[in-house]
């Protein structure tokens, strides 16, 4: 998120969250639950905006309130069939054991190679170009940034393979 995006999100947050909090309160939820659902909705909004797939049929505020409401109902087990927007893929895997295993694997990878993960995030999640990534991470142009990206991906992949070997 750059400064401009952060300002836009802050303004959207300030304008929208109290309405969601009121809605969640009326349905018997807590402030913490309202915040979590709102952050989930903002993630959907920001991800769709990044990939150019955000299709608003109303205002951003109405969109966020709609998604946050679904997220909150889902967290309460009340809306398992409510669909999320097309193209949004939850990262969470349904199997709790696998989820815990991945979470702990990620913690280890963050400790040993945070910069690599940040570079990979910039490419796969933020959709920066390789030229932008080279500038941001201090590489001598797109070619060396591309090589570094694949080295990082290889490193993460090796960590995963090792963890799976130990788990067997």
């Amino acid at each position: 998120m750059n400064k401009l995006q952060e300002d836009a999100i802050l303004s959207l947050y300030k304008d929208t969250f109290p309405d969601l909090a009121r809605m969640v309160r009326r349905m018997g939820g807590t402030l913490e639950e309202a915040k979590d659902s709102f952050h989930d909705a903002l993630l959907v909004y920001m991800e769709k905006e990044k990939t150019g797939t955000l299709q608003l049929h109303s205002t951003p505020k109405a969109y966020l309130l709609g998604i946050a409401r679904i997220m909150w109902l889902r967290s309460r087990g009340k809306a398992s069939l409510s669909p999320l927007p097309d193209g949004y893929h939850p990262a969470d895997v349904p199997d709790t054991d696998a989820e815990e295993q991945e979470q702990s694997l990620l913690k280890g990878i963050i400790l040993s190679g945070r910069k690599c993960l940040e570079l990979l995030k910039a490419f796969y999640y933020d959709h920066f170009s390789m030229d932008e990534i080279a500038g941001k991470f201090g590489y001598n142009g797109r070619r060396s940034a591309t090589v570094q990206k694949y080295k990082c991906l290889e490193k993460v992949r090796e960590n995963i393979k090792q963890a799976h070997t130990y788990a067997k």
Partner: protein
Amino acid sequence: MRNELQETALIDRYLLGRLDEEETRAFEADMIMSHSLAEKVDAQRIAHRLILRFARACERSRLENIYRQLLNDNGFARQLKEIFA
């Protein structure tokens, strides 16, 4: 790029659906023939999932910061206090 990195790049193109039909068929045939390649593809698929988890955790942390920043705004904080009074 060294050969291993070229292979990593190829796996990525497969996982991101950027190979054409013929390339996909050839790649999937290679996976059947090579256990080592199939293992790499599986691990790289998990790597993509971990990158997504990491990215979302970073964004959540930024959103938490925005929330904390807004709690210092008296009007915003008062509204929340009244709603949950």
